[in-house]
């Protein structure tokens, strides 16, 4: 009997569980849950992000980079203790951060107050109102900041070619430089009598002293796109060429650009034979292993050259401005900060950026591992320079630096030029002759492609 009762009970439970009505109910509830879940999630994100609307808190978003370590570990904390404003610091990888920050600014989500950016994001972020005008927020610019670094934050640009839609607009400051990252020359002092001044000096030293593969005269990034463009730009600028001219016509396919690329090819006998596939890590390794006499690279390398764990030639590498031919013209690529268009606490963000770019704080920043400060007083301070010998070279390089074209289409320019430069290098490495013709043909091809792209895009000519 008891068994029977149990059977009836379990049967009724089963039928209750499997009745069409209950399945339908559960299904509808599930569907409702599914459709509501994203909204709930969004609401919870919104409420947590809008909690940063407090004047006692700012949120900084950034990409990961070793150069940002002192900023994160020392100065963010110091600002908190000095002002009582809490700083939340979120970092992710470069590509993800570019997308996150752009989406946050476009939709005014309010998840961040400050975006740490690469300087070539500024045209798109300023034109698209992802970030807000610092001038309109009443930002006080420290006059001690080096002009070429500061100019990276203006939109429309203060100098260089301007897009037609912005030709008559007054330049406004949209972002403020926080790290003056610039290309400098790294050379092993064992093989040079003082800093090489011209590319000819390096070529002569490479010819007379290098013994590949145990000692290369030169190392370069040859991978397509941004890496090989970074190799080429200091050469192009120093030979008197331009990435683009004032009228947006490419300025690298003329005799200056061809001569600059020929100069790079003239190093081929003294370069690693796999240079066409070299990016920063491989390019730099040959220098740090003591197998290379010189190269140009951004300032991040300064933190490795004296580290015995990373370098076999610790203490032997010196730094200088990139070599000249007609002039010195290193490429500049600053770390720069903008205030989000939907920032919950723009005044707190402004306060932080004014504080960090002030002269006393920048002096302390330079003292922390010889970081690439943005003020003249910090970079040229004799006491600090005696400890961090690259700082005057950075100041020199920033003052001579040539900015890349200020347009949201700059990555496309770089991709086109970088692809053709890489093809030219591959050909030159395999043929080992006919450099001028290879250079001329590939640079003309790149120039034609860029012009065609600009015409298709509109707004340039």
């Amino acid at each position, binding site marked *: 009997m008891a068994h029977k009762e149990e059977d009836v009970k379990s049967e009724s439970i089963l039928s209750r569980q499997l009745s069409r009505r209950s399945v339908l109910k559960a299904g509808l509830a599930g569907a409702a849950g*599914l459709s509501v879940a994203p909204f709930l999630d969004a609401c919870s994100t919104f409420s947590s992000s809008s909690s940063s609307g407090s004047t006692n808190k700012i949120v900084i978003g950034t990409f990961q980079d070793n150069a940002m370590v002192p900023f994160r570990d020392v100065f963010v904390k110091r600002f908190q203790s000095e002002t009582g404003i809490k700083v939340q610091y979120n970092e992710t990888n470069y590509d993800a951060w570019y997308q996150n920050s752009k989406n946050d600014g476009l939709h005014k989500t309010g998840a961040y107050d400050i975006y740490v950016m690469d300087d070539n994001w500024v045209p798109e972020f300023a034109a*698209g109102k992802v970030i807000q005008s610092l001038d309109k927020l009443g930002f006080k610019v420290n006059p001690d900041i080096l002009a070429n670094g500061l100019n990276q934050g203006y939109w429309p640009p203060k100098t260089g070619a301007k897009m037609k839609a912005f030709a008559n607009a007054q330049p406004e400051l949209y972002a403020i430089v926080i790290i003056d990252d610039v290309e400098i020359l790294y050379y092993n002092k064992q093989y040079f009598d003082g800093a090489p001044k011209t590319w000819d000096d390096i070529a002569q030293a490479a010819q007379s002293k290098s013994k590949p593969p145990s000692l290369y005269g030169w190392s370069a990034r040859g991978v397509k796109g941004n890496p090989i463009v970074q190799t080429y730009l200091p050469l192009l600028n120093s030979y008197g060429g331009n990435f683009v001219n004032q009228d947006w016509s490419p300025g690298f396919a003329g005799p200056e650009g061809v001569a600059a690329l020929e100069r790079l090819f003239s190093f081929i006998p003294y370069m690693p034979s796999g240079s066409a596939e070299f990016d920063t890590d491989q390019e730099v390794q040959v220098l740090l292993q003591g197998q290379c006499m010189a190269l140009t690279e951004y300032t991040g390398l300064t933190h490795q050259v004296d580290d015995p764990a990373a370098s076999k030639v610790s203490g032997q590498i010196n730094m200088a401005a990139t070599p000249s031919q007609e002039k010195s013209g290193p490429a500049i690529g600053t770390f720069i900060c903008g205030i989000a268009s939907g920032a919950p606490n723009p005044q707190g963000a402004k306060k932080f950026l004014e504080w960090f770019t002030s002269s006393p704080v920048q002096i302390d920043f330079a003292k922390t591992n010889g970081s690439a400060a943005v003020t003249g007083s910090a970079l040229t301070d004799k006491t600090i320079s005696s400890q961090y010998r690259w700082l005057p070279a950075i100041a020199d390089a920033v003052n001579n630096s040539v900015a890349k074209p200020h347009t949201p289409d700059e990555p496309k320019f770089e991709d086109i030029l970088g692809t053709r430069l890489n093809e030219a290098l591959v050909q030159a490495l395999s043929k080992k002759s006919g450099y001028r013709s290879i250079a001329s043909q590939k640079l003309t091809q790149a120039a034609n492609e860029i012009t065609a792209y600009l015409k298709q895009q509109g707004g340039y000519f």
Partner: protein
Amino acid sequence: MVTAGAARPRPRRRRAAFIAGPHVLLVPAAIALAAVSVYPLAYGIVASLRQYRYGLDMGFAGADNYLNVLQDATFLTALGTTAKYVVLCVLIETLLGLGLALLVNRQLVGTGLWRIGIILPMTVAPVVVGVMWRLIYASDIGIADPVLGLLGVHGVHVLGGESSAFLGVVLLDVWEWTPLMFLILLAGLQTIPQEPLEAAVMDGASALRVFFDHVLPMLRPVLFVAIVLRTIDALGTFDQVYVLTRGGPGVSTQLFSIYAYNTAFLFTQEGRAMAMVVLLLAAVLVLAGIAIRLVRLGPGTR
């Protein structure tokens, strides 16, 4: 007078409920499918008809994105490279996968171990595969150059030359995805009835004849499905090639997917990138349609 039958629903209502019931039950799944699949697809098609600049939607662009894409020489080159890549990879993987499946199907000693060993590459994430092969091919620290040197081929840097980089990328794909072909074809081989094969052998047919006249026709539907699946998958190859070469040297390994990614996320031409993706989707649908038709018409399906 109340009868027992009056308390029950009328037959017409019951029939209507019977017909509507399953459809109502499908509603939650349909909503979920629409949210995660149909909406993004429709959004993508709409985006391909709009112009974006500075991250902003600048309005309806008509067919401009499609026209620009079809006039873009780099896009057409990427399409050609992708076609070459897919044909080469799928062909090699099919032949190798079939060969390996035939071998393992013979119940050799340690079949289980062979099977595990063969499918192992497929289980590694494509990004990890890309990093791994980059280390193998690297001219400074990799083992590819010394091995080629031992074989008498000197001065070849796999990633430093246009043809060698392309072949290097194909080799990576073959290493990673031959196991998938192997697995599908092995499953197909194991479903083939043995009686006709034994009868053919008894009639004096050679092994090759048995294979071409019996095994291959019976395997044909599975073979087609495997080729179609692998072709569709290979058309979307991105991770490992992006990690390995970023499309270089030059444009020699710039597959369609890499160019579309760069167009969307590097050049911020979202509309144009979506036009590329829609064009590829159309091509895949046509390809899949043809393949399905071939399978239906095939003798193996009778």
